[in-house]
Protein backbone atom coordinates (compact mmCIF):
# COMPACT_ATOMS: atom_id res chain seq x y z
CA UNK A 1 0.00 0.00 0.00
CA UNK A 2 2.76 2.41 0.97
CA UNK A 3 4.47 1.77 -2.35
CA UNK A 4 1.30 2.60 -4.24
CA UNK A 5 0.94 5.82 -2.26
CA UNK A 6 4.55 6.74 -2.91
CA UNK A 7 4.17 6.08 -6.65
CA UNK A 8 0.97 8.11 -6.79
CA UNK A 9 2.80 10.99 -5.13
CA UNK A 10 5.48 10.64 -7.80
CA UNK A 11 2.86 10.81 -10.54
CA UNK A 12 1.39 13.87 -8.85
CA UNK A 13 4.85 15.53 -8.70
CA UNK A 14 5.40 14.87 -12.41
CA UNK A 15 2.04 16.41 -13.24
CA UNK A 16 2.85 19.49 -11.13
CA UNK A 17 6.12 19.97 -13.00
CA UNK A 18 4.51 19.41 -16.40
CA UNK A 19 1.81 21.87 -15.42
CA UNK A 20 4.40 24.55 -14.63
CA UNK A 21 6.21 23.78 -17.88
CA UNK A 22 3.02 24.42 -19.81
CA UNK A 23 2.92 27.90 -18.32
CA UNK A 24 5.78 28.83 -20.65
CA UNK A 25 3.35 29.72 -23.41
CA UNK A 26 -0.07 31.38 -23.27
CA UNK A 27 -1.39 28.74 -25.66
CA UNK A 28 -0.74 25.86 -23.29
CA UNK A 29 -0.96 27.74 -19.98
CA UNK A 30 -4.56 26.89 -19.22
CA UNK A 31 -3.90 23.20 -19.76
CA UNK A 32 -0.89 23.56 -17.49
CA UNK A 33 -3.03 24.90 -14.70
CA UNK A 34 -5.47 22.05 -15.22
CA UNK A 35 -2.62 19.55 -15.00
CA UNK A 36 -1.59 21.09 -11.69
CA UNK A 37 -5.20 20.81 -10.50
CA UNK A 38 -5.35 17.13 -11.33
CA UNK A 39 -1.99 16.64 -9.62
CA UNK A 40 -3.42 18.21 -6.48
CA UNK A 41 -6.53 16.06 -6.70
CA UNK A 42 -4.42 12.88 -6.99
CA UNK A 43 -2.31 13.92 -3.99
CA UNK A 44 -5.40 14.55 -1.87
CA UNK A 45 -7.20 11.34 -2.83
CA UNK A 46 -4.13 9.21 -2.26
CA UNK A 47 -3.56 10.80 1.13
CA UNK A 48 -7.08 9.87 2.17
CA UNK A 49 -6.26 6.18 1.63
CA UNK A 50 -3.46 6.33 4.19
CA UNK A 51 -4.17 4.09 7.13
CA UNK A 52 -3.16 6.82 9.56
CA UNK A 53 -6.46 8.45 8.73
CA UNK A 54 -9.18 7.07 10.92
CA UNK A 55 -11.88 9.68 10.96
CA UNK A 56 -13.26 11.40 7.86
CA UNK A 57 -15.90 13.61 9.49
CA UNK A 58 -13.74 16.66 10.04
CA UNK A 59 -11.90 16.13 6.78
CA UNK A 60 -15.14 16.34 4.84
CA UNK A 61 -16.35 19.34 6.85
CA UNK A 62 -13.05 21.16 6.31
CA UNK A 63 -12.90 20.39 2.60
CA UNK A 64 -16.47 21.55 2.01
CA UNK A 65 -16.11 24.81 3.96
CA UNK A 66 -12.73 25.59 2.37
CA UNK A 67 -13.87 24.78 -1.17
CA UNK A 68 -16.99 26.91 -0.83
CA UNK A 69 -15.10 29.94 0.47
CA UNK A 70 -12.30 29.53 -2.08
CA UNK A 71 -14.73 29.16 -4.99
CA UNK A 72 -16.75 32.20 -3.97
CA UNK A 73 -13.65 34.39 -3.64
CA UNK A 74 -12.23 33.16 -6.96
CA UNK A 75 -15.47 33.88 -8.80
CA UNK A 76 -16.22 37.25 -7.26
CA UNK A 77 -12.77 38.78 -7.24
CA UNK A 78 -12.11 41.66 -9.62
CA UNK A 79 -8.99 41.45 -11.73
CA UNK A 80 -7.67 44.68 -10.23
CA UNK A 81 -7.90 43.01 -6.81
CA UNK A 82 -5.97 39.86 -7.73
CA UNK A 83 -2.79 41.08 -5.97
CA UNK A 84 -4.47 41.32 -2.58
CA UNK A 85 -6.19 38.01 -3.16
CA UNK A 86 -2.86 36.33 -3.90
CA UNK A 87 -1.43 38.02 -0.80
CA UNK A 88 -4.28 36.68 1.31
CA UNK A 89 -3.97 33.17 -0.12
CA UNK A 90 -0.20 33.19 0.46
CA UNK A 91 -0.96 33.97 4.07
CA UNK A 92 -3.46 31.13 4.30
CA UNK A 93 -0.95 28.68 2.84
CA UNK A 94 1.72 29.79 5.31
CA UNK A 95 -0.78 29.74 8.16
CA UNK A 96 -1.87 26.22 7.27
CA UNK A 97 1.75 25.03 7.33
CA UNK A 98 2.24 26.58 10.77
CA UNK A 99 -0.96 24.95 12.05
CA UNK A 100 0.09 21.55 10.73
CA UNK A 101 3.43 21.93 12.49
CA UNK A 102 1.62 22.66 15.77
CA UNK A 103 -0.86 19.82 15.31
CA UNK A 104 1.95 17.38 14.56
CA UNK A 105 3.89 18.60 17.57
CA UNK A 106 0.88 17.82 19.68
CA UNK A 107 0.35 14.43 18.01
CA UNK A 108 3.95 13.26 18.08
CA UNK A 109 4.78 14.71 21.51
CA UNK A 110 7.37 12.66 23.34
CA UNK A 111 8.76 10.85 20.33
CA UNK A 112 10.30 13.71 18.39
CA UNK A 113 13.46 13.06 16.43
CA UNK A 114 15.86 15.96 16.20
CA UNK A 115 15.34 16.51 12.47
CA UNK A 116 11.57 16.52 12.98
CA UNK A 117 11.66 19.13 15.72
CA UNK A 118 14.01 21.32 13.67
CA UNK A 119 11.66 21.08 10.70
CA UNK A 120 8.74 21.93 12.96
CA UNK A 121 10.44 25.04 14.25
CA UNK A 122 11.27 26.14 10.69
CA UNK A 123 7.80 25.38 9.39
CA UNK A 124 6.16 27.18 12.31
CA UNK A 125 8.46 30.18 12.02
CA UNK A 126 8.26 30.71 8.24
CA UNK A 127 4.58 29.79 8.14
CA UNK A 128 3.62 32.27 10.86
CA UNK A 129 5.73 35.09 9.36
CA UNK A 130 4.10 34.44 6.00
CA UNK A 131 0.69 34.50 7.64
CA UNK A 132 0.86 37.90 9.37
CA UNK A 133 3.13 39.42 6.72
CA UNK A 134 0.61 38.50 4.03
CA UNK A 135 -2.28 39.85 6.05
CA UNK A 136 -0.53 43.22 6.34
CA UNK A 137 0.26 43.16 2.61
CA UNK A 138 -3.38 42.31 1.96
CA UNK A 139 -4.48 45.20 4.18
CA UNK A 140 -2.17 47.62 2.40
CA UNK A 141 -3.28 46.57 -1.08
CA UNK A 142 -6.93 46.58 -0.09
CA UNK A 143 -6.55 50.02 1.48
CA UNK A 144 -7.41 48.80 4.99
CA UNK A 145 -3.95 49.70 6.25
CA UNK A 146 -2.13 52.87 5.27
CA UNK A 147 -0.08 51.87 2.24
CA UNK A 148 2.69 54.36 2.99
CA UNK A 149 5.68 52.89 4.82
CA UNK A 150 5.16 52.81 8.58
CA UNK A 151 8.55 53.31 10.13
CA UNK A 152 9.37 53.86 13.75
CA UNK A 153 12.60 54.48 15.53
CA UNK A 154 14.42 51.35 16.58
CA UNK A 155 12.30 49.17 14.32
CA UNK A 156 15.31 47.53 12.78
CA UNK A 157 16.88 46.92 16.17
CA UNK A 158 13.64 45.34 17.39
CA UNK A 159 13.68 43.01 14.37
CA UNK A 160 17.22 41.93 15.13
CA UNK A 161 16.40 41.41 18.81
CA UNK A 162 13.33 39.33 18.01
CA UNK A 163 15.25 37.26 15.50
CA UNK A 164 18.00 36.58 18.03
CA UNK A 165 15.36 35.64 20.59
CA UNK A 166 13.88 33.24 18.03
CA UNK A 167 17.27 31.58 17.50
CA UNK A 168 17.72 31.18 21.25
CA UNK A 169 14.23 29.73 21.72
CA UNK A 170 14.78 27.46 18.74
CA UNK A 171 17.89 25.99 20.33
CA UNK A 172 16.09 25.50 23.65
CA UNK A 173 13.20 23.62 22.07
CA UNK A 174 15.54 21.49 19.98
CA UNK A 175 17.44 20.48 23.10
CA UNK A 176 14.26 19.90 25.06
CA UNK A 177 11.41 19.14 22.64
CA UNK A 178 8.89 18.59 25.44
CA UNK A 179 8.90 22.29 26.30
CA UNK A 180 5.75 23.43 24.53
CA UNK A 181 5.75 26.94 26.03
CA UNK A 182 8.91 27.75 24.11
CA UNK A 183 7.25 26.63 20.89
CA UNK A 184 4.40 29.04 21.57
CA UNK A 185 6.90 31.84 22.21
CA UNK A 186 8.44 31.07 18.81
CA UNK A 187 4.99 31.29 17.26
CA UNK A 188 4.40 34.68 18.89
CA UNK A 189 7.79 36.02 17.76
CA UNK A 190 7.12 34.89 14.18
CA UNK A 191 3.66 36.47 14.13
CA UNK A 192 5.09 39.80 15.31
CA UNK A 193 8.05 39.65 12.91
CA UNK A 194 5.70 39.13 9.96
CA UNK A 195 3.94 42.37 10.80
CA UNK A 196 7.16 44.26 11.45
CA UNK A 197 8.67 43.13 8.14
CA UNK A 198 5.85 44.32 5.92
CA UNK A 199 4.65 47.47 7.76
CA UNK A 200 7.66 49.59 6.73
CA UNK A 201 7.33 48.66 3.05
CA UNK A 202 5.50 51.10 0.82
CA UNK A 203 2.74 50.38 -1.68
CA UNK A 204 5.05 50.69 -4.69
CA UNK A 205 7.18 47.81 -3.46
CA UNK A 206 4.27 45.44 -3.02
CA UNK A 207 5.14 43.37 -6.12
CA UNK A 208 8.38 42.41 -4.40
CA UNK A 209 6.66 41.71 -1.09
CA UNK A 210 4.04 39.44 -2.66
CA UNK A 211 6.72 37.54 -4.58
CA UNK A 212 8.78 37.05 -1.44
CA UNK A 213 5.80 35.90 0.59
CA UNK A 214 4.91 33.53 -2.26
CA UNK A 215 8.36 32.02 -1.95
CA UNK A 216 7.99 31.78 1.84
CA UNK A 217 4.65 29.98 1.63
CA UNK A 218 6.38 27.38 -0.52
CA UNK A 219 9.30 27.00 1.86
CA UNK A 220 6.91 26.61 4.80
CA UNK A 221 5.14 23.80 2.93
CA UNK A 222 8.51 22.15 2.23
CA UNK A 223 9.44 22.37 5.91
CA UNK A 224 6.12 20.73 6.78
CA UNK A 225 7.09 18.02 4.30
CA UNK A 226 10.23 17.38 6.35
CA UNK A 227 8.10 17.16 9.50
CA UNK A 228 5.91 14.51 7.90
CA UNK A 229 8.68 12.93 5.78
CA UNK A 230 6.37 13.53 2.85
CA UNK A 231 8.04 14.00 -0.51
CA UNK A 232 5.12 15.57 -2.33
CA UNK A 233 5.10 18.44 0.16
CA UNK A 234 8.85 18.82 -0.16
CA UNK A 235 8.75 18.86 -3.96
CA UNK A 236 5.84 21.27 -4.29
CA UNK A 237 7.25 23.50 -1.58
CA UNK A 238 10.60 23.63 -3.37
CA UNK A 239 8.95 24.45 -6.72
CA UNK A 240 6.94 27.30 -5.21
CA UNK A 241 9.93 28.52 -3.22
CA UNK A 242 12.02 28.67 -6.39
CA UNK A 243 9.25 30.38 -8.34
CA UNK A 244 8.74 33.07 -5.72
CA UNK A 245 12.47 33.62 -5.50
CA UNK A 246 12.80 34.11 -9.27
CA UNK A 247 9.89 36.54 -9.35
CA UNK A 248 11.36 38.46 -6.41
CA UNK A 249 14.63 38.79 -8.29
CA UNK A 250 12.92 39.92 -11.49
CA UNK A 251 10.90 42.54 -9.61
CA UNK A 252 13.98 43.82 -7.78
CA UNK A 253 15.81 44.14 -11.07
CA UNK A 254 12.88 45.96 -12.65
CA UNK A 255 12.93 48.48 -9.82
CA UNK A 256 16.68 48.56 -9.57
CA UNK A 257 16.58 47.76 -5.88
CA UNK A 258 18.00 45.02 -3.76
CA UNK A 259 15.76 43.05 -1.45
CA UNK A 260 17.65 44.43 1.54
CA UNK A 261 17.08 47.92 0.20
CA UNK A 262 13.35 47.30 -0.04
CA UNK A 263 13.02 45.86 3.44
CA UNK A 264 15.18 48.50 5.10
CA UNK A 265 15.03 51.40 2.66
CA UNK A 266 11.34 52.37 2.89
CA UNK A 267 11.34 54.61 -0.17
CA UNK A 268 8.42 56.98 -0.23
CA UNK A 269 9.24 58.60 3.06
CA UNK A 270 12.02 60.59 1.47
CA UNK A 271 10.60 63.81 0.09
CA UNK A 272 12.53 64.71 -3.00
CA UNK A 273 13.33 68.33 -3.51
CA UNK A 274 11.61 69.48 -6.66
CA UNK A 275 13.15 72.91 -6.48
CA UNK A 276 12.34 74.33 -9.88
CA UNK A 277 9.04 72.57 -10.24
CA UNK A 278 6.84 75.57 -9.47
CA UNK A 279 8.40 77.73 -12.13
CA UNK A 280 8.03 75.21 -14.92
CA UNK A 281 4.94 75.11 -16.99
CA UNK A 282 3.61 72.39 -19.17
CA UNK A 283 1.39 73.11 -22.10
CA UNK A 284 -2.06 71.78 -21.60
CA UNK A 285 -3.26 70.12 -24.77
CA UNK A 286 -6.72 68.83 -25.58
CA UNK A 287 -8.11 65.55 -26.82
CA UNK A 288 -8.51 67.19 -30.26
CA UNK A 289 -4.76 67.64 -30.55
CA UNK A 290 -4.14 64.09 -29.41
CA UNK A 291 -6.63 62.46 -31.76
CA UNK A 292 -5.27 64.40 -34.71
CA UNK A 293 -1.79 63.30 -33.84
CA UNK A 294 -2.86 59.67 -33.47
CA UNK A 295 -4.68 59.72 -36.76
CA UNK A 296 -1.63 61.03 -38.57
CA UNK A 297 0.66 58.43 -37.04
CA UNK A 298 1.82 55.21 -38.64
CA UNK A 299 3.18 53.55 -35.55
CA UNK A 300 1.89 53.96 -32.00
CA UNK A 301 3.11 52.35 -28.80
CA UNK A 302 0.90 52.47 -25.75
CA UNK A 303 2.37 52.47 -22.26
CA UNK A 304 -0.24 51.57 -19.67
CA UNK A 305 0.33 52.07 -15.97
CA UNK A 306 -1.67 51.25 -12.89
CA UNK A 307 -3.48 54.60 -13.26
CA UNK A 308 -5.21 53.06 -16.26
CA UNK A 309 -6.73 50.37 -14.10
CA UNK A 310 -7.63 52.85 -11.36
CA UNK A 311 -9.59 54.87 -13.93
CA UNK A 312 -11.06 51.60 -15.29
CA UNK A 313 -10.04 52.85 -18.72
CA UNK A 314 -8.65 49.63 -20.15
CA UNK A 315 -11.84 48.81 -22.06
CA UNK A 316 -12.04 52.31 -23.58
CA UNK A 317 -8.36 52.11 -24.43
CA UNK A 318 -8.87 48.83 -26.24
CA UNK A 319 -11.71 50.40 -28.24
CA UNK A 320 -9.35 53.20 -29.23
CA UNK A 321 -6.68 50.70 -30.21
CA UNK A 322 -9.08 48.66 -32.34
CA UNK A 323 -10.15 51.82 -34.08
CA UNK A 324 -6.57 52.87 -34.79
CA UNK A 325 -5.68 49.41 -36.07
CA UNK A 326 -8.67 49.46 -38.40
CA UNK A 327 -7.28 52.70 -39.80
CA UNK A 328 -4.12 50.80 -40.70
CA UNK A 329 -1.99 52.13 -37.88
CA UNK A 330 0.49 49.77 -36.24
CA UNK A 331 -0.39 49.78 -32.53
CA UNK A 332 1.37 47.82 -29.79
CA UNK A 333 1.42 47.84 -26.02
CA UNK A 334 4.68 48.15 -24.08
CA UNK A 335 4.45 46.56 -20.64
CA UNK A 336 6.91 47.48 -17.92
CA UNK A 337 7.58 44.62 -15.48
CA UNK A 338 6.26 46.65 -12.56
CA UNK A 339 3.19 48.02 -14.31
CA UNK A 340 0.41 47.06 -11.95
CA UNK A 341 0.71 45.80 -8.43
CA UNK A 342 2.14 42.35 -8.87
CA UNK A 343 4.38 40.74 -11.49
CA UNK A 344 2.54 40.60 -14.81
CA UNK A 345 -0.59 42.26 -13.42
CA UNK A 346 -1.03 44.68 -16.34
CA UNK A 347 -1.14 41.81 -18.83
CA UNK A 348 -4.07 40.27 -16.97
CA UNK A 349 -5.90 43.60 -16.80
CA UNK A 350 -5.49 44.08 -20.55
CA UNK A 351 -6.39 40.47 -21.34
CA UNK A 352 -9.60 41.07 -19.43
CA UNK A 353 -10.30 44.00 -21.76
CA UNK A 354 -9.93 41.59 -24.71
CA UNK A 355 -6.53 42.81 -25.77
CA UNK A 356 -4.96 39.92 -27.65
CA UNK A 357 -1.66 38.94 -26.12
CA UNK A 358 0.30 39.24 -29.34
CA UNK A 359 -0.08 43.02 -28.99
CA UNK A 360 1.58 42.96 -25.56
CA UNK A 361 5.35 43.40 -25.53
CA UNK A 362 7.86 43.25 -22.70
CA UNK A 363 10.27 46.04 -22.04
CA UNK A 364 13.22 44.20 -23.55
CA UNK A 365 11.38 43.30 -26.74
CA UNK A 366 10.03 46.71 -27.62
CA UNK A 367 12.35 49.29 -26.10
CA UNK A 368 14.52 49.70 -29.20
CA UNK A 369 11.47 50.38 -31.36
CA UNK A 370 10.53 53.67 -29.71
CA UNK A 371 12.97 55.64 -31.83
CA UNK A 372 11.11 54.55 -34.96
CA UNK A 373 7.73 55.24 -33.45
CA UNK A 374 5.52 58.23 -34.23
CA UNK A 375 3.52 58.41 -31.04
CA UNK A 376 4.05 57.00 -27.57
CA UNK A 377 0.77 57.14 -25.69
CA UNK A 378 1.28 56.98 -21.94
CA UNK A 379 -1.83 56.27 -19.87
CA UNK A 380 -1.64 56.40 -16.11
CA UNK A 381 2.07 55.61 -15.95
CA UNK A 382 4.81 57.84 -14.63
CA UNK A 383 8.00 56.52 -13.09
CA UNK A 384 8.41 53.81 -15.73
CA UNK A 385 8.88 56.47 -18.45
CA UNK A 386 10.96 58.90 -16.41
CA UNK A 387 14.14 59.60 -18.41
CA UNK A 388 15.99 60.64 -15.26
CA UNK A 389 16.32 56.91 -14.51
CA UNK A 390 18.66 56.77 -17.49
CA UNK A 391 20.48 60.06 -17.33
CA UNK A 392 20.42 61.62 -13.88
CA UNK A 393 22.78 59.88 -11.47
CA UNK A 394 21.29 61.96 -8.64
CA UNK A 395 17.77 60.66 -9.14
CA UNK A 396 16.47 57.94 -6.81
CA UNK A 397 15.21 56.22 -9.94
CA UNK A 398 18.66 56.15 -11.52
CA UNK A 399 19.46 52.77 -12.99
CA UNK A 400 15.90 51.50 -13.10
CA UNK A 401 15.11 50.12 -16.54
CA UNK A 402 12.52 52.39 -18.18
CA UNK A 403 10.48 52.39 -21.34
CA UNK A 404 12.10 54.82 -23.76
CA UNK A 405 8.94 56.77 -24.50
CA UNK A 406 11.00 59.95 -24.77
CA UNK A 407 12.66 58.58 -27.91
CA UNK A 408 9.39 58.51 -29.85
CA UNK A 409 8.73 61.39 -32.22
CA UNK A 410 5.94 62.65 -30.03
CA UNK A 411 4.51 61.65 -26.70
CA UNK A 412 0.94 61.90 -25.46
CA UNK A 413 0.45 61.57 -21.71
CA UNK A 414 -2.97 61.09 -20.15
CA UNK A 415 -2.74 61.84 -16.48
CA UNK A 416 -4.77 63.24 -13.63
CA UNK A 417 -2.27 65.85 -12.58
CA UNK A 418 1.41 66.68 -12.55
CA UNK A 419 1.86 64.91 -9.26
CA UNK A 420 4.90 62.64 -9.12
CA UNK A 421 4.66 58.85 -9.12
CA UNK A 422 5.35 56.41 -6.30
CA UNK A 423 9.01 57.39 -6.22
CA UNK A 424 8.16 61.03 -5.54
CA UNK A 425 10.41 62.17 -8.37
CA UNK A 426 9.42 64.82 -10.88
CA UNK A 427 9.23 63.61 -14.48
CA UNK A 428 11.35 65.44 -17.05
CA UNK A 429 9.29 63.98 -19.88
CA UNK A 430 6.25 66.11 -18.96
CA UNK A 431 8.11 69.30 -19.79
CA UNK A 432 9.57 68.32 -23.13
CA UNK A 433 8.47 70.08 -26.28
CA UNK A 434 7.27 66.98 -28.04
CA UNK A 435 5.07 66.00 -25.12
CA UNK A 436 1.33 66.60 -25.15
CA UNK A 437 -0.07 66.55 -21.64
CA UNK A 438 -3.76 65.79 -21.38
CA UNK A 439 -4.99 66.23 -17.85
CA UNK A 440 -8.10 64.57 -16.56
CA UNK A 441 -9.72 61.21 -16.03
CA UNK A 442 -8.09 58.73 -18.42
CA UNK A 443 -11.37 57.08 -19.29
CA UNK A 444 -13.07 60.37 -20.19
CA UNK A 445 -10.08 61.54 -22.21
CA UNK A 446 -9.89 58.31 -24.18
CA UNK A 447 -13.63 58.27 -24.80
CA UNK A 448 -13.39 61.82 -26.14
CA UNK A 449 -10.61 60.75 -28.49
CA UNK A 450 -12.69 57.82 -29.71
CA UNK A 451 -15.58 60.17 -30.48
CA UNK A 452 -13.30 62.56 -32.32
CA UNK A 453 -11.74 59.77 -34.36
CA UNK A 454 -15.15 58.47 -35.38
CA UNK A 455 -16.09 61.70 -37.07
Amino acid sequence: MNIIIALAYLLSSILFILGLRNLSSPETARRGNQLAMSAMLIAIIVTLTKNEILDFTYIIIGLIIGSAIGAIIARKIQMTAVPQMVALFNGLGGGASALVALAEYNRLAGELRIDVIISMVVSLFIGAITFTGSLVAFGKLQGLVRSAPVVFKGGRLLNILLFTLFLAMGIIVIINPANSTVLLIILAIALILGILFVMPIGGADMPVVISTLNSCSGLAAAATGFVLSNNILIICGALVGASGFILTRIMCKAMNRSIANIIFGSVGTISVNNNDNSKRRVINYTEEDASMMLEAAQTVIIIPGYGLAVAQAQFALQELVTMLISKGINVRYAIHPVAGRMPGHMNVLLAEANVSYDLLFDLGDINDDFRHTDVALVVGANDVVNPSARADAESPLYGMPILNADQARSVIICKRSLSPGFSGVDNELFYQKKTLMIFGDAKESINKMIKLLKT
Partner: protein
Amino acid sequence: MTEALLVSVYVFVLAIFVGFETITKVPPLLHTPLMSGTNAISGITLVGALISVGAGHSTLSTVLGLLAVIIATINVVGGFMVTDRMLEMFKKGKKKN
Protein backbone atom coordinates in the same frame (compact mmCIF):
# COMPACT_ATOMS: atom_id res chain seq x y z
CA MET B 1 16.18 7.27 9.96
CA THR B 2 18.94 9.61 8.91
CA GLU B 3 19.05 7.95 5.52
CA ALA B 4 15.42 8.84 4.93
CA LEU B 5 16.19 12.40 5.95
CA LEU B 6 19.09 12.52 3.55
CA VAL B 7 16.87 11.34 0.71
CA SER B 8 14.39 14.10 1.57
CA VAL B 9 17.18 16.67 1.42
CA TYR B 10 18.20 15.31 -2.01
CA VAL B 11 14.62 15.57 -3.20
CA PHE B 12 14.32 19.11 -1.89
CA VAL B 13 17.50 20.39 -3.50
CA LEU B 14 16.83 18.73 -6.85
CA ALA B 15 13.25 20.02 -6.88
CA ILE B 16 14.54 23.55 -6.36
CA PHE B 17 16.71 23.14 -9.46
CA VAL B 18 13.77 21.80 -11.45
CA GLY B 19 11.78 24.80 -10.21
CA PHE B 20 14.43 27.25 -11.37
CA GLU B 21 14.71 25.65 -14.79
CA THR B 22 10.97 25.52 -15.31
CA ILE B 23 10.02 28.91 -13.94
CA THR B 24 12.70 30.87 -15.84
CA LYS B 25 10.92 29.78 -19.03
CA VAL B 26 7.66 31.43 -18.03
CA PRO B 27 7.28 34.73 -19.93
CA PRO B 28 6.51 37.97 -18.01
CA LEU B 29 3.16 37.96 -19.80
CA LEU B 30 2.09 35.09 -17.55
CA HIS B 31 3.72 36.08 -14.28
CA THR B 32 0.47 36.82 -12.47
CA PRO B 33 -1.14 33.47 -13.36
CA LEU B 34 2.19 31.83 -12.50
CA MET B 35 2.10 33.37 -9.08
CA SER B 36 -1.51 32.56 -8.33
CA GLY B 37 -0.98 29.05 -9.71
CA THR B 38 2.11 28.35 -7.62
CA ASN B 39 0.22 29.92 -4.74
CA ALA B 40 -2.42 27.21 -5.14
CA ILE B 41 0.32 24.59 -5.35
CA SER B 42 1.76 25.76 -2.02
CA GLY B 43 -1.62 24.71 -0.62
CA ILE B 44 -0.21 21.17 -0.91
CA THR B 45 0.28 21.53 2.82
CA LEU B 46 -3.37 20.44 2.79
CA VAL B 47 -2.03 16.90 2.50
CA GLY B 48 -0.33 17.35 5.86
CA ALA B 49 -3.44 18.93 7.32
CA LEU B 50 -5.55 15.94 6.25
CA ILE B 51 -3.25 13.61 8.13
CA SER B 52 -3.33 15.81 11.24
CA VAL B 53 -7.09 16.02 11.37
CA GLY B 54 -7.81 12.48 10.26
CA ALA B 55 -5.52 10.76 12.75
CA GLY B 56 -7.94 11.77 15.49
CA HIS B 57 -5.17 11.93 18.06
CA SER B 58 -6.53 14.57 20.44
CA THR B 59 -9.04 17.37 20.39
CA LEU B 60 -6.26 19.93 20.08
CA SER B 61 -4.68 18.21 17.08
CA THR B 62 -8.08 17.82 15.48
CA VAL B 63 -9.02 21.49 15.96
CA LEU B 64 -5.67 22.71 14.64
CA GLY B 65 -5.87 20.24 11.78
CA LEU B 66 -9.43 21.23 10.89
CA LEU B 67 -8.46 24.91 10.78
CA ALA B 68 -5.49 23.99 8.61
CA VAL B 69 -7.69 21.93 6.26
CA ILE B 70 -10.12 24.82 5.85
CA ILE B 71 -7.56 27.52 5.08
CA ALA B 72 -5.40 25.26 2.91
CA THR B 73 -8.48 24.27 0.90
CA ILE B 74 -9.38 27.94 0.39
CA ASN B 75 -5.83 28.43 -0.84
CA VAL B 76 -5.96 25.46 -3.23
CA VAL B 77 -9.47 25.84 -4.65
CA GLY B 78 -9.44 29.64 -4.82
CA GLY B 79 -5.92 29.74 -6.26
CA PHE B 80 -6.54 27.25 -9.06
CA MET B 81 -9.94 28.68 -9.95
CA VAL B 82 -8.78 32.27 -10.22
CA THR B 83 -5.76 31.16 -12.26
CA ASP B 84 -8.07 29.34 -14.63
CA ARG B 85 -10.28 32.43 -14.88
CA MET B 86 -7.27 34.55 -15.78
CA LEU B 87 -5.80 32.15 -18.31
CA GLU B 88 -9.14 31.85 -20.03
CA MET B 89 -8.92 35.56 -20.83
CA PHE B 90 -5.60 35.35 -22.62
CA LYS B 91 -6.55 35.18 -26.28
CA LYS B 92 -4.62 35.58 -29.44
CA GLY B 93 -6.01 38.03 -31.97
CA LYS B 94 -6.35 37.24 -35.62
CA LYS B 95 -3.12 38.50 -37.03
CA LYS B 96 -3.41 40.80 -39.97
CA ASN B 97 -0.81 41.02 -42.72
